[in-house]
């Protein structure tokens, strides 16, 4: 396993171990005290570190390709998507801190200087915007794979999965249409953009499934594992999204709601691991000093 990937999962494991302790405290006492601290301080820090690492690693991957190489464009968009996620994590954490400090002290510097819509802006940048950028990048990857005959057709299970997603999308669109009628106020532009999240996530999933099929076909080398990590990240994001929907519909109990918050850490770790695999494939020939004969 590449060094960076190992470090990302180590940090994730330690982070989740602390999170488990906070969750157990919540289960035993019913108090949100440590759980709130954990998500506010360590959770925020984890998202900032992983998104920053993802951005740095994606930039490194991008610099490994010359301007006329097709994968350069793909990595440019992946770097922009990771930058969008980093900006979103920063804005969301600032909003959390503003809210955390406001009740106790009205003179909080953050509460005075930071605007109210930070979380919304963060949602938009880290959601639809980052997804569009990633979709463009994955589309580029698919075209490169198609050119080299790596791309494989979809299986029946894939078609079934995508059909299911299409049904869910139509269901959601029908629900949105209901809220566009006269009794409701016209939706804001931000809200309309946020509605795009799920269709975009469905598009990403289709792309991810196609890339995964190709990865299975060629075996799991370092480059294949990079794309496999994106598949994991997208599927985990979808799971997180589904949990938000389930919470909104009141389908989950209180202990389960708190548990779903942890999904996002795995998605962030998977997103950070993906460029780490690609970078390992690109840097390995430089550092692989006579390893062939050591084996």
């Amino acid at each position, binding site marked *: 396993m590449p060094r960076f990937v190992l470090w990302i999962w180590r940090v994730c494991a330690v982070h989740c171990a602390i999170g488990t302790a906070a969750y157990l405290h919540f289960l035993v006492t019913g108090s949100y005290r440590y759980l709130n601290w954990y998500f506010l301080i360590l959770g925020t820090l984890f998202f900032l570190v992983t998104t920053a690492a993802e951005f740095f690693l994606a930039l490194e991957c991008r610099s*490994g*390709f*010359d301007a006329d*190489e*097709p*994968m350069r464009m793909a990595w440019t968009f992946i770097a922009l998507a990771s930058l969008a996620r980093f900006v979103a994590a920063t804005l969301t954490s600032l909003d959390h801190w503003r809210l955390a400090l406001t009740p106790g002290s009205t003179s909080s510097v953050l509460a005075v200087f930071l605007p109210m819509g930070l979380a919304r802006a963060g949602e938009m940048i880290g959601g639809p915007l980052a997804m569009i950028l990633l979709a463009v990048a994955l589309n580029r990857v698919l075209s*490169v794979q198609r*050119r*080299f*005959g*790596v791309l494989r057709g979809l299986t029946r299970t894939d078609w079934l999965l995508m059909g299911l997603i299409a049904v869910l999308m139509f269901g959601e669109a029908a629900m949105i249409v209901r809220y566009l009628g006269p009794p409701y106020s016209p939706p804001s532009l931000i809200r309309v953009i946020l509605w795009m999240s799920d269709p975009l996530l469905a598009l990403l999933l289709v792309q991810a499934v196609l890339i995964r099929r190709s*990865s299975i*076909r*060629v*075996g*799991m*080398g*370092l*480059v*294949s594992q990079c794309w496999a990590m994106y598949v994991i990240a997208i599927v985990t994001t979808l799971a997180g999204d589904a949990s938000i929907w389930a919470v909104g519909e009141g389908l989950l109990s209180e202990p389960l709601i708190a548990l779903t918050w942890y999904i996002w850490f795995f998605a962030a770790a998977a997103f950070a691991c993906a460029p780490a695999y690609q970078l390992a*494939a*690109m*840097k*390995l*020939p*430089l550092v*692989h000093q*006579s390893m*062939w*004969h050591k084996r």
Partner: protein
Amino acid sequence: MEEWSELSVINENVSSSLIPSAQSAEDPVLDELSQKMLSWSRLWFGSFENSKATEEHYLVRERLQHWLKLCIGREAGSVLTCPFESVSLATSTPLLTALIGRRAMVELSRRVLNDS
């Protein structure tokens, strides 16, 4: 991909025509150059049809297979135009260059050809 097979045919023609011309000239420098070119082209295209494959040729192929497995996957041969057992730098370079970049591929080729 077809370009590489065409190049392979061209290479065989050029290589075979190089030897007699060098021999007829009886110039040791030209002869050495011709032999080197022939050897390198065999390493590049991985074809030993009219000659005996040396241990170096096998080593180069093994190293290349190792790198292909490491970077792309165990079944990388399934997307190449030739069987994985007879993979060469000529057949695998386009795919590897596209996936890991030109600069990394130059280093990888050096490793494949020069690791001792």
